[in-house]
């Protein structure tokens, strides 16, 4: 019985220990600020389009499949307030170089959309390099999924 009584306390302390951890960390993932603009993930526009485009290793060039996907975004992009482009890389190679490469990938997508008539001021880019993989393994099929630009409309 004594033990049962202490259960809520344990639970409470567990929460405290968790919340200390949260207060140590500064940002939650709900809001992300890019170039000074806050995005509310709840305001995402669901386009039902493919939200990722993929790249070859150490390359930022767009292939024809990618261009086909991006061209479907043009009309949606013109209606949206913000187009967020997140560049990513696979784990191979060096982290800081990959940060730059992820940015080059996002820029290539941005330039394509601009040529198609999307206003450049609406497009916000960010690179996470190899820091945020979606597939955690070390095979070509994992790497393929991680070399990407994620497109989100708000």
């Amino acid at each position, binding site marked *: 019985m004594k033990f049962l009584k202490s259960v809520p306390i344990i639970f409470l302390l567990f929460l405290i220990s968790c919340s200390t951890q949260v207060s140590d*960390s*500064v940002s939650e993932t709900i809001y992300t600020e890019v170039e000074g603009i806050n*995005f509310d993930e709840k305001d995402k526009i669901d386009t039902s389009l493919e939200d990722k485009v993929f790249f070859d290793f150490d390359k930022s060039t767009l292939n024809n499949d990618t261009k086909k996907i991006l061209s479907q975004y043009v009309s949606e992009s013109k209606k949206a307030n913000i187009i967020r482009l997140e560049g990513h890389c696979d784990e191979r190679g*060096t*982290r800081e*170089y990959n940060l730059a490469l992820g940015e080059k990938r996002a820029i290539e997508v941005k330039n394509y959309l601009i040529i198609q008539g999307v206003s450049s001021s609406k497009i916000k880019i*960010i690179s996470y390099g190899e820091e*945020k993989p979606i597939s*955690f393994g070390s095979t070509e099929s994992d790497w393929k999924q991680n070399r990407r630009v994620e497109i989100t409309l708000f």
Partner: protein
Amino acid sequence: MKIFFIVLIYFFCLNFEAKLKIEIIKGSEDLPDIAVVPFKSSLGRKFEYKVRDLINEKLTLFGEFNSLELEKMLSFPFDEESFYRRDWELLSVDYAVFGEIYETEGNLTLYYLVADIGLKRIILRGDITGENKNIGLITKKISDRVYESITGLKGIFNTKLAYILNPEPNKYSICVSDIDGDNEEVLFSSNSPLMSPDWSPDGNKLAYVSFEKGFAEIYIQNLLTGVRETIPTLGMSKSAPVWSPDSKNLAFVISMSGNPDIYNYNLKNKKISRLTNHYGIDTEPAWSPDGKKLLFTSNRSGSPQIFEIKVSNKRIKRVTLEGSYNARSRFFPDGKNIVFVHGNNGIFHIATRNLKDRFINIVTKTTLDESPTISPNGHIVIYSTKKENQGYLAGITVDRKSKFQLPVKKGSVREPAWSPFLN
């Protein structure tokens, strides 16, 4: 009540904790044999053995010596009179370390000697005094002196390692621990990526990259006060900070609309100057020990290669020519050799090179190696690699006589950064 405490402790431990303990994977056959004798003390046998073990643990930390077991020792000398060279010649010991401890008003004075058995003489005599509670630091300093007397290299037992800990997806911590893995401290945690730790030359600050605001921003954190500051400059994406050897400048990368270039920031007058100006990727700067040059990675020639820029006239020279991927270089303290990531056919090793010749020495066998960091005495390289989806740190002495790894139980560890010599 007991259960409650156990549960509580368990949860606190779960929060982080990497505890990097060095495990030797391979020691060379021809390592020097050392014998560390218990230090004679009036504080009792337990303490004598404890001091011995502390010194012995340090000296053997990186697998550079074979250490003689206590049971095999024929005598326990504590000064020159009680030392018989024959006792050690019989056991083929190369170096014997011994001494005694005096206690005065809570302070300890440790006298220590190193005998070179082959040379037939005492090569080091010293003493160190400190409070009893600082026995850890005292034995580190003795180990440093002993190591230097034997190898000619400054000891690195009183240095630290900074690293990024990724205990689970979307959780990132920047940690600092003693080089032997003790006293791990979490400096900062975030749900967004943390990258690129770099020590200030005085060892009091750490620069690193955090995505906490939704873009890559450089922070300088004071390790004593915990205070963090950013750099007031243009450009939303800043990365790869590196402190100049004189502490006055911080070189880093600013990307203006997708074009990363190297800049130099004067920490005193807060002025910023652009060093490289190319539409390709320029990143991963690294200062030469004299502060006159920087190495950096650029894809201006088509694939990532290492270049060198002179700070005074911004003249650029290509350094690496072989292979499709050479990046993230660092100078050895001699300013003549460099370490970097060398990739060929999608396989990435750590490599070293003398700047005067073209020959690349590949020093690792694992295939996803990155972020090499060099011990301040230039003798050991620690880097990050990966096995079974888990990132971990590994290391090698530059003479390749010893290899080791620093495994963790949970999560991934990466981007090691070795501190300078500390006081």
